[in-house]
C-alpha cells in the first residue's frame, strides 16, 4: 500500500516536470525592461506613448559601462497599451516589471488620470511604489532628453523623487495616488516636473480633484504643504530678513496635529484646529543674527510667516474644492455621521484654524 503511494507520488512528480513549459522564463538580459513611460496627446482620441528602457553594454573586464537609454514612441488609440504596440519595434520582449516612473502631460492629467493609472494597477508585474508625475509640457520631450547627471532618465527621476520624499516633499507613488483617489475626504497630488536644459526640475505639487489635474502648489510652498500634510524632518525653508537677505532654516522635526471639534459652535459644523510644531536650526545666514534678527525674534517671524502661508494654502484649496491635505478624512475620524457630500458642501467655507509654533535649537558656530 505504502509502496503504491510512493510510486504514485514519484510518477506525479515526474509528470509535473513536463508541465514546466507553463512558466514562461523571462531571463533578465533577454528582455527589454521598460523603466519609464510617458503619455502625451497626439490628437483627438490618439495618444503618443513613449517608453525608455536601458541598454547595457558588456562589461569589458573591469567596471561597468554606463547604460544608454533606448527611447521608443508610438501613436496609439486611447485605451490601448503602449507596450503592446511597441513590440513590433523592439529587439526583445518588453517587460514593464521594473517600471520606475510613469509620466503624464498636464493636458492628459487635466482630462482624468484614472484610466491610465488603472493600466498600472491591473498589471501584477508593476510595483506599487512606481512613481507617477505630471509634466508641464510634453512627457516625450523629457524622456528623450539627455541629462548630465544620469544617462537614464528613469533612474534620474526615480532617484530625484526618492530624495525629495525625504525632505520637503511628501511621498508620492502609485500606491499613494490610488489611496488618495479612492479614499474618502481626500484628493490625490503628484509632483509636477518640467525640463530645463540639462535637468528636470520639480516645479510644484500638482493638485487633483478626483483624478483631474486642476492646479499646482509652487515648489517654494512645498515645505508649507508638507508641514500641514504630515510630520516630517530634514526639510528646509528660507525666511526673508529684509528685501535682499534670507535666513535658511533646516527643520529637525515638524509635528502636525489635527484636532476637530465635531459639532463646532453652531452644533453642526466642525471646527478644524491644526497645530504645527517646528523644531529647527539656522543653517545659513547672510548676517549675524542679533537684535531685530535674534533667535527669539526669528522664531516669531518664521511662525508668523508659516502660519500666513499655510492659511493661504488652505484657502486656495478651499476655493479649488480639492482636499490634498486630507482634512475631510481627519474630520471623518472625529464625526460619527460623516458624509462626503455634506462635507464637500461645507468645505469651501469650513472653519479651519492653524497655529504654528517654531523653536530654533541652535544657530551654528558664530564669531
Amino acid at each position, binding site marked *: 500500500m505504502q509502496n503504491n503511494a510512493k510510486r504514485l507520488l514519484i510518477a506525479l512528480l515526474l509528470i509535473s516536470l513536463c508541465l514546466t513549459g507553463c512558466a514562461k522564463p523571462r531571463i533578465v538580459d533577454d*528582455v527589454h525592461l521598460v523603466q519609464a513611460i510617458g503619455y502625451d496627446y497626439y490628437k483627438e482620441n490618439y495618444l503618443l506613448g513613449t517608453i525608455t528602457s*536601458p541598454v547595457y*553594454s*558588456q*562589461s569589458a573586464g573591469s567596471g561597468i559601462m554606463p*547604460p544608454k537609454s533606448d527611447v521608443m514612441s508610438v501613436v496609439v488609440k486611447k485605451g490601448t497599451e503602449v507596450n503592446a504596440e511597441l513590440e513590433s519595434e523592439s529587439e526583445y520582449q518588453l517587460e514593464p516589471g*521594473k517600471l520606475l516612473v510613469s509620466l503624464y502631460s498636464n493636458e492628459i492629467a487635466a482630462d482624468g488620470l484614472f484610466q491610465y493609472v488603472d493600466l498600472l494597477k491591473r498589471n501584477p508585474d508593476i510595483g506599487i511604489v512606481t512613481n507617477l508625475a505630471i509634466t508641464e509640457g510634453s512627457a516625450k520631450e523629457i524622456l528623450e532628453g539627455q541629462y548630465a547627471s544620469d544617462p537614464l532618465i528613469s533612474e534620474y527621476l526615480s532617484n530625484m523623487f526618492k530624495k525629495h520624499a525625504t525632505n520637503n516633499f511628501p511621498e508620492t507613488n502609485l500606491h499613494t495616488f490610488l489611496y488618495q483617489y479612492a479614499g474618502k475626504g481626500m484628493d490625490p497630488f503628484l509632483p509636477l516636473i518640467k525640463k530645463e536644459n540639462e535637468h528636470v526640475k520639480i516645479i510644484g505639487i500638482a493638485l487633483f480633484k478626483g483624478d483631474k489635474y486642476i492646479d499646482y502648489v509652487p515648489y517654494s510652498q512645498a515645505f508649507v504643504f508638507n508641514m500641514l500634510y504630515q510630520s516630517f524632518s530634514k526639510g528646509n525653508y528660507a525666511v526673508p530678513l529684509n528685501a535682499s537677505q534670507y535666513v535658511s532654516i533646516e527643520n529637525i522635526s515638524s509635528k502636525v496635529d489635527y484636532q476637530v471639534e465635531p459639532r463646532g459652535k453652531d452644533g453642526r459644523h466642525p471646527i478644524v484646529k491644526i497645530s504645527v510644531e517646528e523644531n529647527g536650526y539656522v543653517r545659513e545666514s547672510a548676517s549675524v543674527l542679533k537684535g531685530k534678527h535674534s533667535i527669539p525674534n526669528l522664531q516669531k517671524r518664521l511662525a508668523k510667516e508659516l502660519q500666513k502661508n499655510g492659511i493661504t494654502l488652505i484657502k486656495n484649496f478651499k476655493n479649488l474644492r480639492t482636499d490634498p491635505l486630507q482634512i475631510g478624512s481627519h474630520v471623518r475620524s472625529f464625526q460619527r455621521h460623516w458624509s462626503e457630500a455634506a462635507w464637500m458642501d461645507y468645505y469651501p467655507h469650513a472653519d479651519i484654524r492653524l497655529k504654528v509654533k517654531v523653536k530654533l535649537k541652535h544657530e551654528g558656530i558664530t564669531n
Partner: protein
Amino acid sequence: MKWFSKSQQSMREKQLENIYTMLEGSGDYISKKHQLKKTAIYCSFIRTIVDTDMLQRDILTPLIQQSEGTTLEELRTSLPFEEVILTDDVNTIKEKVLQGHVLIQLEKNSEQGLLLDVKAKNDRQVSPPEVEYNVLGPNESFIESLDVNIYLLRKRLPLPNFKIKEVTVGKLTKTRTAIIYIDGLANEENVNTVMQRVTAIEYDQIIDVSFISQMIEDDHNSAFPQLVDTERPDRVASSLSEGKIAILVDGSPFALMGPTTIVEFFSAFDDYTLNWYIASAFRLIRLMSVAFSVLATPLYVATLTFHYQLIPKNLLATLISSRMGIPFPPLAEAFLMEFTIEVLREAGVRLPTKVGQTIGIVGGIVIGTASVQANLTSNVLLILVAMAALASFTTPNYRMNNTVRLIRFPFLLFAGLWGMYGIACCFAIVVAHLLRLESLGRPYIEPFFPLRIKDLKDAFFRLPFSKQKLRPMLLRPQDPGRVNTQRASKKHDIDD
C-alpha cells in the same frame, strides 16, 4: 548413550585436526618444541601478529630457565601474565591464536593448551585531530586501536559506571565493536536500541565505524547523517556525560554518537572553548553560511530567469552587463559552474598532495579568469558560486558538509524550472523529510520540532554554562541535572 559420546569425541578430534592443518597451511604459523627442566612444551603462534621479543623474554626464557612444573596448570601459575587462559575448547584456541595469542601445549596439536596474549602493538601514536581541527582545547584524536581509544575516553571519565559493551560484528572481519555509555545516565531505551541494531548487523566486513553508521541509521536513504562521527575523544566524553551513547570500532579512528540532532552537526568544539556569545556568533555565522551555500545560486537562477522584478534597480546594471553575451540560460550557466567547483574539489581530495598544487593553479586560472573572459560565465555568478563553495566548508562535520554541498543541486534544478516556486517546493520537501527523520528513534530537528524551549539553550545560540544546568531533554537522561543544585546555591564570593 555411549555411541553418541564416542561419535562426538571423533568429531572433536576431526575438528582439531582440521584447525591445525588449516593453521599450518599459512606460511607464518610456527609450532616449535622447547625442552623445559622436567617436560617439553610445544609453542605455537602466528609470527606476523605476535611480539616475538615479548614471547622470548617473558614466556620462553622464564619457562626454560626456571619452571619446574609438569602440567599446564603448574606452568600457568609460574607465568607473569595478567590473563592466562587454560582451555580445551577448539574454537577458543582458533580464535585467540588468530588474534595474536601464543598457544602452549604439552603434546603437539592436542586439544588442551595455555593461551597467552603476546599481540604485537604496532599502533600509531595518538596525534592531533586532522578532520575536526580546532584552535583551543585538547589536541588528541582517536587512533585505530580500540583499546587505546577506550583508554582516551576512560581517562576523561574516571567513573565506575562507565559501561563498555563489546560485541563482535562482521562475518569475516570479526570486528570488535564497543558500545559505550554511562550507566545510570544514558537512557536505557537508547542503549537497548543501539545494542539491538548493532547485534542485528549481518555483513561480512566491518572495516570502519561508518559501515556501522550506515547500517544502524534510522533512514538509510536520507541525505542527512543521523549519527555524529567524531575523531575527538574530548567531544565523545562530553557527549557521554550528556547521556549519549558512543560506538567505537577496532580499526577505526572515529567514534559514532547518538541520538543527535541536526544542530550538533553544525557545532564545533570551539563553540564550547570560547566565550558564549562569541561562540554563538560563530555558530550563527556557520548556520547562515549553510543557508547561503544552499540557496545562493538557486536564488540567482530563479531571479534571473523568472523574477527580474525582484532585482533592485541599482543592481540591474551589474547583473545585466555581466551576463551580456553569455550564450547559456542562467540554469545551465550555474550548473556548469557548480559542476566545475565540485570537480575541482573532488580532484583535490583524490590527488596525491604532491600533485595537489596543480589543482589550485588550474582552478584559479580556468574558472577564475578564462571562463569569464571567454564569456562562458558571468562575474557575479562566479562570485556567488565561489562564496557558496566556501560557505559550505564552514560545516565542521564532514558528512554534513557533503550533504550541504549536494543538496543545492536539486534546489538549482527546481529553481531553473519553476523559479521561486520551485525553491519553495524543494524547501518544503526537505523540511518534510527532516520532520520525519529520527536519530535512534529521537526527533532529528528536536529543539525546533517538537519545540522544546529548554533545549534551545544549545541550538542557534550556545548559552553560558550557568544556563546549561540540565542535560538535553532529547536524550531523556536518567539523571537530567548536570549540577548539584544544593552546592551551587551555597557558592559565595571570598569577600562575602
